[in-house]
């Protein structure tokens, strides 16, 4: 591990900033004492970028003082970070745009990272947009792939575009840091390396509560945690427009029940009111990484594809042999999903219970 970054003198020119900016940073999203797992996924991805560039990976943690911060830093090291910038202040007890933007901006202008990754959560998107505007740099939202272009030493950030019908690759060439948000579960969780350690650099926030206009009056925790279930489910069965009518969605639910799977659907089903938005799979819904994904009557537009590509095994059923879903499914069944789903449900039911007994 190299020395921790030291404050750089402020460069007046664009080129100075480019030359002075070093290192890959990952924002460690801590909310109410708990680090969002997307932070570890991004450390895994940041590690690959940093190794290509020959630089370190640093986690950035803004939080109220507490024992959870040391634990979070240790988790960051175990997932591949070399160091953690830790900004502790009671003001940071709840997420609020202004103090978090001030704090993260202060860290950026002081230590000058070349890349900064954040999770595309409600918090990450809110914070990333405010910070990128404050430091006047480029921010690419909801990336599905990150790479380094060594010719320009810039990050190539790929994301769906035009409503998810094509992909585009975006670079930030003349500003730093190069910022990107990535949705939870898009990147793989890196394995933990126990015993790995790193350096913690404390940095003060330097704000007074009186200076902050927005106050948090209360926090109402969700009772319904179905959303998290879909993202972290090992088995998912989903339906699309090819099911024909809303009554047929029950066939998806029947199969899911036999498999102990979560149910989901494509965007048209949400727009048609068949399922809630929290069940949508794809670019504007949830990204999943299950061991088994069964897609019935889903054509597989890019915006759906990017939400399911991390699945270990994709079985697609579609009556159109040219449906794009067959370009990325592992198993292709051409036929009427409403006839095949009940047969699959029955076959799984028999096979799984026979083996268990």
């Amino acid at each position, binding site marked *: 591990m190299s020395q921790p970054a030291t404050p750089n003198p402020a460069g007046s020119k664009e080129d100075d900033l480019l030359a002075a900016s070093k290192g890959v940073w990952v924002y460690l999203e801590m909310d109410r004492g708990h680090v969002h797992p997307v932070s570890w996924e991004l450390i895994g991805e940041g590690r690959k970028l940093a190794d290509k560039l020959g630089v370190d990976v640093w986690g950035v943690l803004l939080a109220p003082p507490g024992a959870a911060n040391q634990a979070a830093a240790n988790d960051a090291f175990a997932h591949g970070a070399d160091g953690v910038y830790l900004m502790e202040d009671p003001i940071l007890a709840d997420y609020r745009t202004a103090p978090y933007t001030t704090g993260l901006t202060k860290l950026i202008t002081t230590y000058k990272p070349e890349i900064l990754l954040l999770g595309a959560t409600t918090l990450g998107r809110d914070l990333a947009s405010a910070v990128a505007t404050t430091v006047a740099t480029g921010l690419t939202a909801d990336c599905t792939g990150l790479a380094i272009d060594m010719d320009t030493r810039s990050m190539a950030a790929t994301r769906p575009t035009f*409503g998810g019908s094509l992909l585009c690759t975006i670079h930030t060439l003349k500003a730093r840091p190069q910022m990107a948000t990535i949705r939870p579960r898009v990147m793989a969780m890196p394995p933990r390396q126990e015993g790995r350690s790193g350096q913690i650099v404390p940095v003060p926030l330097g704000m007074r509560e009186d200076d902050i206009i927005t106050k948090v*009056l209360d926090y109402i925790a*969700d009772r319904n945690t179905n959303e998290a279930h879909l993202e972290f489910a090992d088995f998912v069965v989903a339906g699309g427009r090819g099911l024909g009518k809303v009554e047929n969605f029950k066939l998806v639910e029947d199969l899911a029940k036999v498999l102990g799977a979560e149910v989901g659907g494509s965007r048209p089903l949400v727009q048609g009111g068949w399922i809630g938005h929290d069940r949508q799979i794809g670019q504007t819904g949830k990204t999943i990484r299950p061991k088994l994904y069964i897609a019935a009557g889903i054509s597989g537009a890019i915006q759906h594809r990017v939400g399911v590509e991390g699945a270990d095994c994709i079985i697609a059923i579609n009556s159109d042999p040219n449906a794009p879903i067959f370009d990325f499914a592992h198993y292709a069944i051409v036929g009427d999903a409403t006839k095949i789903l009940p047969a699959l449900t029955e076959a799984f039911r028999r096979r799984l219970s026979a083996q268990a007994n």
Partner: protein
Amino acid sequence: MHVVVCIKQVPDSAQIRVHPVTNTIMRQGVPTIINPFDLFSLEEALRLKDQLGAKVTVLTMGPKMADQALRKALTFGADEAILLTDRAFAGSDTLATSLAISSAIAKIGETQPIDIVFCGKQTIDGDTAQVGPGIATRLGLQQLTYVAKIVSIDQTAREIVVHRRAEGGVQVLKTSLPCLITMMEDTNHIRFGTMADAFRAARSPITEWTAVDAGVPDISKGGLRGSPTVVKKVFAPTARTAKAIAISGDTPEALANSVLDTVFAAHPSLQGDLQSSIATNSQGASS
């Protein structure tokens, strides 16, 4: 009370088609709509008009034809419409867009001070959710994204209380006006405008502003030149190198059995994983 609603005209993305050979977007004949997420914010603004007598100004940036989106907003009940249109804005990324729009909002505020700026949560064509916070940051407005509900507005104290959606819960936030709000989807339904509004919208002039009219301070920081992000490549995804294994059968039952045989053979741990998952689930259900 004066509220400004920023809207965007977008292609109806459900109908976008990609040319199979050239991989370009086939724009011809694709209808345009007001970005659906903006309608939740527009409706919320119109409710403030109903309840508090707020004046509602709608603002968009785009080509001349974007006046259609503004006229539509007028039919819903907005009072005034401003179109920010200038070739200098072409190629703007989110940073350059927030510069242009925030300049125009500041200009609008010179005539009548603004209490709330509304934006959509995100657009359906860009899906970035970046322009709203960019505007708030540039104008120094309190930033309230993902608002699920406006709980109360105290015009005397100039304070607002909202529910803001966070991961795993809802924050109850109190802040001072002026602020910028992006509404969550499905928080309301856009109204049917009245006949009177429809007639008024048809006759209403739409104010057109260039970059100079809007008071954009440094045009070199707008448009393509003012955009730090560069789109290097647009492409269609390639098929996986390994082609999908086709499975067929004479009857659905034969097909289903063939699927299980093939998949379980290729993924030996899958059957065990499914069984232990089912066992865990049924334990959870019975406890």
